[in-house]
């Protein structure tokens, strides 16, 4: 049971860190940012590239996170900005961007899986009957640190308050003198940085491929809906709920339907609470 819960928390943290990036963008701009998956993959490749060129892991990881931020901002500047007032076009633009990003990765690096090496990949701790691998512990820590930082920024800084204001009511925020466009860019920057964090946290357990985040992104979207569209805390809670539900379902019912348990949980929660676990109602990004 302990190992099952640890696996669930690991999965939940992974879902949460991806989902928070999605929900942040959705909360501010109402874009279902499918391109997030491509950003994660390219961030992982950037880390890999830096690592292959001899950079120490920490530097390579920072390169990957920065690459995520830059790419994400570029998607906003080059694509999403132009359909801001055409919400029905946003999903198609997001899918188009995903294809562009993934095929760029495919063109640059090929389709074969590649390993991202870390200094802690061989670490293993056993606590009672529970084994904790270094890569899983690192993912949990990175998630906690990055999400705590984000929560602090959103709650305590003027930048964060501005983002929240735009998410709540962009017209009112504009009338109050908040530069709305800048908040959009900021939301994409933060989402991109989180994509970079998820790439360096998650790639060492799997492999780097152009499609490495597709499956995770689907689960993250479930988390976004589960937690309440636009709610950061909802995404964190939803991620943990989904991870633990999937893990328990896999352990006690059938591991071959692991992903299906998440979707069942989604349906059940939407029936009980149509707005999600922590529906933000009028107040988004909180």
């Amino acid at each position, binding site marked *: 049971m302990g*190992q*099952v819960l640890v*696996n669930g928390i*690991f*999965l939940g943290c*992974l879902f949460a860190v991806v989902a928070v990036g999605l929900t942040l963008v959705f909360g501010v701009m*109402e874009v*279902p940012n*499918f391109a997030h998956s491509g950003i994660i993959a390219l961030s992982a490749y950037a880390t890999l590239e830096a690592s292959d060129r001899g950079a120490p892991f920490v530097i390579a990881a920072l390169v990957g996170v920065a690459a995520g931020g830059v790419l994400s901002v570029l998607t906003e500047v080059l694509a999403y900005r132009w359909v801001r007032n055409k*919400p029905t076009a946003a*999903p198609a633009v*997001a*899918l188009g961007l*995903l*294809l562009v990003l*993934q095929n760029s990765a*495919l063109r640059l690096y090929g*389709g*074969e*899986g*590649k*390993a*991202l*090496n870390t200094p802690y*990949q*061989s670490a*293993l701790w056993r606590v009672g009957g529970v*084994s904790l*691998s*270094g*890569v*899983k512990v690192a993912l949990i820590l990175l998630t906690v640190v990055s999400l705590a930082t984000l929560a602090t920024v959103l709650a305590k800084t003027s930048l964060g308050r501005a983002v929240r204001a735009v998410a709540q009511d962009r017209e009112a925020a504009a009338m109050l003198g908040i530069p709305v466009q800048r908040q959009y860019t900021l939301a994409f920057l933060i989402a991109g940085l989180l994509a970079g964090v998820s790439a360096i946290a*998650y790639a*060492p*357990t*799997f*492999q780097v491929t152009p*499609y*490495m985040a*597709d*499956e995770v*992104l*689907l689960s993250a*979207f*479930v988390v*976004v*809906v589960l937690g309440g*569209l636009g709610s950061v805390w909802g995404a964190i809670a939803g991620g943990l709920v989904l991870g633990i539900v*999937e*893990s328990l379902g*896999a*352990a006690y019912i059938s*591991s*071959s339907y*692991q992903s299906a348990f998440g979707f069942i949980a*989604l349906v059940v929660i*939407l029936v009980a609470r*149509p*707005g*999600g676990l922590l529906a933000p109602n009028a107040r988004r990004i909180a």
Partner: protein
Amino acid sequence: MRRGPIGFVAALALFAGASCGSDNKTSSGGSAGATSGGSATKVASADSTAGGEGGVATVGAILSQTGIYSTLGPPEKNAIDMGLEALNATGFEVGGKKYTMAVTVADDKSDAATSGVTAFRQMVESDKVPVIAFGLGSSLYAPLLKRTPLPMINILDSTYPSILDYDPNIFLTRGDSPTYVPGCVNYAKTKLGAKTMSIITATGEPYAEGLTQLVQKSAAKEGVEIKATAEYPLGATDYGNAINQAVAGNPDAIYLSSVTAVILPVLKQLRQSGYTGPVMHSSGVNPNQAEAILGSDFNTIMKDNYDCAGTLPTTSADARTKKFADDYQARYKEYPQDLTMWAYDFPFIVAEAMSKAGSTTDREKITAALKEITVPAGTVSGWIAGDGGVMFTDRDARTPSEITVWCDAKKTIASVMVFDVKDGGVIDPTFKDDPCATV
């Protein structure tokens, strides 16, 4: 207007549908490029553009150049290039005239259902190729073959139940899974002393599901207890729950069912979870792939690792196969997978069938001829001829089966057991006492 969860879920469904077929890379390699499904490019050696006095016989190949199975397609294409060059150096005779061969290669993007089927239609209906080589998607091409019969030669896929059951026009150039999987269980029992095993398998992947069934059957025959059969959905990226289930019963060995690109991440997470016991599989992992996918710890992760499949070019005892392996490695700077030798032989097999059929275009005659040809000269795979010396027995051509072991001191694999299988049991096994000493 704010959109609610229902609209968001609809957009999510759109993503799920789109991402299924999103791997559309245009790839190139060897002497010519392979293109995305539908359009294709000829792979031909220099002299084949002119051909002999008979001209150029053009056949097709649908390979996974990109996507999750892109570990398979590019080496297959490389080997076909080599086979074509060797064949076209002398050409082949059909009806008293000399021909050379060219192969049109299309990329199924690891998605036979969409890109593969599109490429098939292009080749069959527009390009009018008489023969197609392919890897994945036998069940998907079978209904198309019913409408437009032509010989399709599989140079990769040994699922269980056999792909040969799908359609009488499908031929297979490797031993089917039942010819090598029993070796794993037998070796685990007799040489590793295993009394129990667990299986970790990908669901929704025919090769994996077939292997799992065969391991279960072989275990029952050998008296080895299967402690757990842990499953994960194909496409999953975290296998923690399946791994927990598999190791919970403390098995003496674990068998991983699926292909290289799928099992290596599972193996990585299995070792990261602390499991140090023997791991077996039938994926044909080579050292290059192990290093690329597993990273700097690949040698540790691959320790105590056993691979049961057909003979590999580098570990084969056949001098022709060994020479091919050396040539391939020297040319492409990569370790040749088992499928490379079958791909190399593909042009020779087709040429032999065309010669026997007396036609380079008549699909029906070439299909009939394939069933009658003997092992063609120039092939390198070390085929085991059937009764009367024929290459295909019940449309299946096969090479010996073997088990390779990972040699951590040399960071490579070595053959440890060569065997045959009869009635589901291992026969005529030969062992190497110190396999790693000779590699």
